[in-house]
């Protein structure tokens, strides 16, 4: 639980302090003293404002125009009214929610299960390295692994045929749910480790005695898990799921490499929709309008869910 940070720090300071003659006591003006913390955060803050606020304002401005190459034609809120009637936009929003939601639920369940079985195991260090590996591949590499396994190399179909579940090659891109399934598999495979690592740390950090007492009272392990471990981990689970949930809603790489949104847009996520409108069809104004709507949703989620999650996580 406790890191060795403070200990090593004490040591360093103890050795460093007596060597130097004490410098004369500094007197700073009260104004500077007050401004000092602001000066410290200012560079980081300025950098982030340029990279978030500027694009935000630019996107709002651009969303009011029809942009074709270098000509900007005033369009008022036309882009937004068009978006509201655009079935592809709503489909992208729905797909992001469906694919992201199922994927998040699945990886949370798996991560909880393996974390619960692994955290007290003597081989935990080994398990941790093995379970971590999928996360350490570049996302584009992971997308190619599953593109090859599902589509191009027919490996999954072959394996399923051998077990007798299907009786022929499956075209995973031909059906809405099959295509979504491939994206979910790729995401779950790569990112379950993220949650697993955090859950294991949470389980190892909890008070073992309560659990031990319950076990001696004869409680079964599912009950111990459900009634004791899970409630104690709750704040950490919330933080982990929030962070993962945010990342999932930005899903792009897998869609770009594995499905390109097919069949018929059933796997197009919000990120891919914006990319396609902007950089494939060059409707930059339209893409910006979609960005602005996504930004508004992000700000709402950040202000409600995330703020609360991080406050409870810190306790």
């Amino acid at each position, binding site marked *: *639980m406790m890191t*060795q*940070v*403070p200990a090593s*720090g004490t040591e*360093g*300071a103890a050795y*460093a*302090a007596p060597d130097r003659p004490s*410098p*004369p006591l500094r007197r700073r003006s009260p104004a500077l003293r007050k401004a000092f913390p602001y000066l*410290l955060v200012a560079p*980081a803050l300025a950098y*982030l404002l340029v*990279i*978030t606020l500027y*694009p935000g304002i*630019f996107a709002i401005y*651009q969303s009011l125009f029809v942009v074709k190459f270098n000509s900007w034609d005033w369009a008022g809120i036309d882009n937004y009214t068009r978006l509201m009637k655009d079935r592809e936009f709503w489909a992208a929003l729905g797909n992001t929610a469906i694919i992201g939601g199922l994927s998040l639920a699945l990886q949370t369940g798996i991560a909880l299960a393996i974390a619960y*079985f692994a955290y007290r*195991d003597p081989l935990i260090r080994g398990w941790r*390295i*093995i*379970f971590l*590996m*999928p996360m*350490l*591949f*570049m996302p*584009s*590499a992971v997308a*190619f692994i599953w*593109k090859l*396994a599902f589509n*191009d*190399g027919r490996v999954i179909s072959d394996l399923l045929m051998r077990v007798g579940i299907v009786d022929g090659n499956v075209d995973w891109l031909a059906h809405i749910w099959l295509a979504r399934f491939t994206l979910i598999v790729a995401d779950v*495979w790569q990112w379950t480790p*993220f949650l697993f*690592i*955090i859950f294991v740390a*949470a389980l*190892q*950090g909890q008070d073992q005695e309560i659990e031990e007492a319950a076990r*001696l009272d*004869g409680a*079964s392990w599912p009950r111990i898990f459900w009634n004791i471990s899970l409630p104690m981990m709750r704040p*950490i689970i919330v*933080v982990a799921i929030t962070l993962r949930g*945010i990342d999932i*809603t930005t899903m*792009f*790489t897998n869609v*770009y490499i594995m499905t390109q949104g097919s069949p018929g847009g059933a796997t197009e996520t919000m990120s891919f929709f*914006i990319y396609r409108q*902007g*950089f494939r069809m060059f409707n930059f104004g339209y893409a910006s309008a979609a*960005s602005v709507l*996504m*930004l508004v949703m*992000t700000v709402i989620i950040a202000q409600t869910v995330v703020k609360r999650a991080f406050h409870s996580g810190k306790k």
Partner: protein
Amino acid sequence: MASVRKTRGESLLLRYIVLGSWAAVCLLPILWFLTVGFRPRTEIITPQPIYWPNWSLDAWYLLTSDWPIAQYLRNSVLAVAGSVVIDLILAIPAAYALSRYEFKGREDIGFYILSTRMMAPAIVAVPIFFLFRNMGLLDTVWALMLIYAAINLSLVTWIIRSYMLDIPKELEDAARTDGAGDLTILREIIVPACLPGIITAAVIAAIFAINEFLFTLLIASTSKAYTMSVALANFTGGSDGVIYNAIALVSFLAFVPILILVILIQKHLSRGLTMGAVKG
């Protein structure tokens, strides 16, 4: 006592079934992909998958002769290392202020920095593309460096802040009565004391930067600025289709150093991944 032993035995069997199956799910695709890297192209896309290939180094020869792989690697290293340096320079003072000073708006500033992590790359993609185009930075490593730094700044700041909060106040107070200034304290006491946090933050930021895809795809349009991550997606050699064996090989070339880095910071990983919210 007997019943305790019995439930222990049962859950042990179940435990190893669950852990063993998930280990197989993790490892088998990786091992199979490794065989893809060492097989000729004719054995990749076949009507019947070939599980045990005729080993070959075709992909390696292809990589070293046809692709400027050294260039991609150099771009990746330069952009990633540069971005981490920018992050540390900006984040250490910011984290110091956020963890050590009482000032008006501290919570809001901290939360604003955190919230930039939640911005989907796609939201800012179009404006950032125009911004870099106007600055003449499209298709340069510099642009990648700046954008990676921006993506990871929130994460680096929050991780370091979390480690700084752990440092006991007495340390500074002692130095302060000796007359040390705030910046001296930061340099001589705080930074050495939270070095594990700084290293953790740097490693995690580097991994996210190596993996970054969407911005790199938009900013880098030729091999001049391609990084490994995006070069991979462009190994689709036109009429030749996707060149999987080369992709597999490059994936492992990037995987090994990342694995080593992560093993080195293993103890701090959970804390780093939650931006300091979970103390592992």
